[in-house]
């Protein structure tokens, strides 16, 4: 299931304010995990083999951390800033595992703007329904003229 906007907002650098936020949610289910494994070739059994995963400290399959973090691309490219975004860098920290079927909310906030570079510095988070941070990061994004 996809819930991205049909088209990304066409925001100029000047129209974006420090402190501005955007967010969207997505369920990370087995089909998403399988698609990501096929796309990347990462079939690690912690993500793909329930029997194996049950023997680990996690007790069940968990989503790839990079799968969860990859939605920061959606956040930047489709929400904040949207159409004019050029992703320059992204730091990520995996804070908690994401179990299959969890609904995750991805949120970004403009931490600061660097006018001379037309660059946004964003704080980025992925939160579960309990409000716990599962991935956190920071992104730098150029806004095309």
């Amino acid at each position, binding site marked *: 299931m996809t819930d991205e906007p049909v088209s990304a907002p066409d925001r100029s650098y000047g129209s974006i304010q420090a402190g501005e936020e955007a967010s969207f949610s997505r369920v990370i289910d087995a089909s998403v995990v399988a698609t990501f494994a096929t796309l990347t070739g990462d079939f690690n059994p912690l993500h793909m083999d329930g029997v194996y995963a049950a023997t680990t400290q996690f007790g069940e399959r968990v989503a790839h951390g990079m799968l969860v973090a990859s939605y920061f691309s959606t956040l930047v490219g489709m929400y904040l800033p949207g159409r004019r975004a*050029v992703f320059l860098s992204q730091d990520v920290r995996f804070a908690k595992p994401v179990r299959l079927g969890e609904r995750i909310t991805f949120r970004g906030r403009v931490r600061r703007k660097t006018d*001379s570079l*037309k660059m946004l*510095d964003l704080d980025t988070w992925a939160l579960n329904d309990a409000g716990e941070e599962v991935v956190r990061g*920071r992104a730098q994004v*150029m806004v095309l003229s």
Partner: protein
Amino acid sequence: MNRLCGLVAEILGVDVGEVNPETGPLVLPPWDSLNHMRLVAAIEETYSVQLTTDEITNVLSVSDFATLLRERGVRVD
């Protein structure tokens, strides 16, 4: 600071004569945010240092880069 200016000129694709310690994105159009990140990568590799995210977003001139390098014990010549 000739070596650092030369590196900046090489990454930005400009004549080294266009680069001095005060050069930054406000005065040199090729210094956009994409090239800013390329500059950071080249400087980190050339001088074997790693800049923090805050430093990367705050540095806005050749002399700012030189200051960060000197803070890490790098001789900037």
